[in-house]
């Protein structure tokens, strides 16, 4: 393997793979659905996401750190299932383009068509993915700390708008309804791990890698809980459930010293940067799978083709309703479970084979691809 990330870089990548959605999209969705019980719901979603993380980590332990998921799948699940895995990974990118164009058109560029916004995003993502995981992780190394500082500042400022009675009482009023609402945020918290589960391009033992990924996951979950708490406390369950991006709406309310307004000016660019990085992570994951199926295919070709195809899908359902349908029905109920089954199934299968092989001597392993050749 040519690329070698540090455990810290893996943890940050993992966090970046989910944080953009937890900042903007999930709080609104959760507050709309469960109102006052949103805090319980995101707690539950975080726990469920971490449980999936633990399960996939356990399943993948058999082979890692020698191979990535894209390596073990052809032997364990077959080439057809690997293709299915790649397609499912690509479908996540459609959801990300949806998020981007919906947010940008709603808040920053109402008159610009979504294809133009996505074409711009694709240019940035192509540059970010130019040198594979290693190049991307270095870009993340620069942007993630800036985003973290911006997040802490925003969180501190918006905390000043929290009103205590909005958060009380913390009772689990509708447990069944709340549990149902857990599913979709949990799929988003768990999605990063599915893509990065066999993060084998990292220096470290399997246990260290798992710990790093879980640490990244915990950060994302923590961000979601904090954002939901702030949105709920600042806007209240009723108004919070009416706006699409509650924390963003709360940031818009900020007035510092009577002059400094429109602090969403800081939030918008930060979120866009993070979403570009998230898309880059998934595009590289798809390119890795593509090159595993067709060995001599160009890395750049995969990135560009996947970007364009997913962009076209996203543009084709550009209304908010169709985007929600895609997320709830396609992503939440079909693609994520499928992706998860493939990942866990591949991991368990690899684990079983590894144990079998170790009883009968070593078996040669295919080398993994982790960036442009």
């Amino acid at each position, binding site marked *: 393997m040519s690329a070698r990330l*540090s455990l*810290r*870089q893996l943890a940050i990548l993992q966090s970046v793979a989910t944080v953009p959605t937890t900042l903007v999209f999930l709080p609104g969705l959760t507050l709309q659905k469960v109102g006052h019980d949103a805090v319980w719901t995101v707690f539950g979603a975080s726990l469920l996401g971490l449980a999936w993380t633990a399960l996939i980590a356990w399943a993948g332990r058999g082979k890692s750190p020698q191979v990535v998921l894209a390596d073990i799948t052809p032997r364990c699940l077959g080439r057809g299932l690997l293709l299915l895995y790649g397609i499912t990974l690509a479908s996540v990118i459609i959801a990300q383009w949806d998020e981007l164009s919906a947010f*940008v058109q709603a808040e*920053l*560029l109402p008159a*610009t068509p979504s294809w*133009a*916004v996505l074409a*711009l*995003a694709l*240019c*940035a993502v192509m*540059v*970010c993915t*130019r*040198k594979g995981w290693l*190049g991307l*992780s*270095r*870009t*993340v*190394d*620069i*942007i993630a700390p800036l985003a973290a500082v911006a997040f802490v500042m925003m969180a501190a400022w918006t905390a000043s708008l929290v009103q205590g009675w909005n958060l009380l009482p913390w009772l689990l009023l509708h447990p069944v309804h709340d549990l149902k609402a857990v599913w979709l945020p949990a799929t988003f918290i768990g999605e990063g791990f599915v893509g990065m589960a066999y993060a084998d391009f990292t220096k470290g033992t399997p246990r260290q890698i798992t710990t790093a990924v879980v640490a990244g996951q915990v950060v994302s979950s923590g961000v979601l809980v904090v954002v939901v708490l702030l949105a709920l406390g600042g806007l209240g369950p009723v108004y919070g459930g009416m706006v699409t991006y509650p924390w963003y709406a709360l940031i818009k309310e900020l007035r510092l010293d009577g*002059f*400094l*307004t*429109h602090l*969403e*000016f800081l939030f*918008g*660019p930060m979120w*866009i*940067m993070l979403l*570009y990085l998230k898309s880059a992570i998934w595009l590289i994951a798809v390119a890795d799978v593509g090159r595993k199926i067709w060995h001599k295919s160009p890395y750049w070709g995969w990135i560009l083709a996947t970007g364009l195809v997913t962009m076209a899908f996203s543009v084709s359902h550009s209304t908010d309703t169709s985007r929600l349908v895609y997320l709830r029905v396609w992503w939440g109920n079909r693609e994520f479970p499928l992706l998860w089954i493939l990942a866990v199934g591949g991991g368990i299968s690899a684990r079983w084979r590894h144990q079998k092989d170790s009883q009968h001597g070593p078996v040669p392993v295919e080398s993994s691809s982790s960036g442009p050749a």
Partner: protein
Amino acid sequence: MDATTLGDLRSLAEALLIEMEQWLEPSLPMAVQDAAQTVLDLFGNPPDLDHRAVPWGREVLHLIYFDYAVGDVQLLAGVVQPLLLPQGIAEPSAVVSGSIKRMQTITAAGQALLEGQVLVGASSWSDWWAADVANPPLRAISEPKNEEVIHGPHTGFIEDTTVNLWLLRQFVRTPLLRVEQMTVGGLTQTPVTLVWVAGISQQAVIERLKAKISQLDLDGIIDSSELAELLGGSRLLPTFQYSERPDQVASALLEGRVAVFAGSSPTALMEPAGLVHLMASVGDYYQMASLATMTRILRYLALVLAIVLPPLYVALLTVNAELIPMNLALTIGHSRIAIPFPVLVETLLMMAAIDLVQEAGMMMPGAMGQTVTIVGALVVGDAAVKAGIVSAPTVVVVAVAMLAQLMLPDSNLEGMVRLVRYPLVLLGSVFGIVGVTTGIVILIAEAAQTMSLSLPYLEPFAPRGQGLFRDTVLRLPVTYQNRRPSTSHQATKR
């Protein structure tokens, strides 16, 4: 066939003949008069190539040398007088005091002349000899005008590598200082000198640099900056650091980096060079750590402002006006009421005018250049506002960006900042802050993925390296800088 074509053909044939002779390395003719004529013909009998025939007993002593390259005193005292005293000696090496070498081929004789040596021949000797009495005209050692400091050494490199190496040895007095010379350019035969400290520099970096230089196949180079371009790297970001200061080059050597001198250039290249190297000024180390830290923070802030300020201004006024605080929006709007141009045109005009003034200032010599810059900027800015062509906020934004850009210590980095502003302004005018953000992500990704030899361009920020805050944005006291940076062979204690 006309005379011009014939002349061209003759020149080509002569060049081909010289190339062939260099390749075949023919010997000098046995007859001393013929040999002298052959050497003169090799250069086309130029007026600055002197051929002196000095009576020497029963025979004649032939001296061939380039005027001004050879010192008269050295020639007389070092070669002529020792040879004239004991007549009939078999070899001049026995009496000539300085360095003297036997010349057997025409090519070697020609090369020796170009290096400022004098060719000596006599009919009783079997060979010609080249004596080193070079004393080319050189300027005095002075402080480089572009890199002046208040405290610290005031010496600078000159147009002679030997002198430059001596200056460098005054700062790095160790036998571990290694110097290796290579030759680049089929026609110019430019000496390229690599300098490093054994045990500190990474051998892989040195070998890679040597391999790159040895692979260069071209007619020649004139200055070290050409060499920097030829050695590759990013086309957008500067991956070399230049300096004319021996103290700065010595510091780089102690960090494990490699210095490269090319030909008669007073500028040394330092490789590898990341952003932190380009953002550090040599003066930072000659003032108190707290003051240097403040300067560094200002400089990094200036880098961000110089790139982002005009594009953000255009983005906010053109697309995302709703993000401007109300009071500020009213002030800007009031000052723009009478302006006929849109913000984009206004800003581009002002940026181009400022760049023109700056370039004009660079072209004019000395104090006149400064006057042109100051007067030009003041007059253009003031007149443009009074004439109602541009608004005062636009002048302020572009002027602040220009001042910020002038704070950057590396001229290539400064140029890059000027360059990237234009596409960012265009992006901002179409896509607002989304466009500016996208441009910045592209810029960060490009920088993060760029390598200067084996060094990631943004290290120690990305990937995180040792001493993240010791000598980067902050300049901690020297007592805290007790480990060598990652450019060295290993991050050992200093």
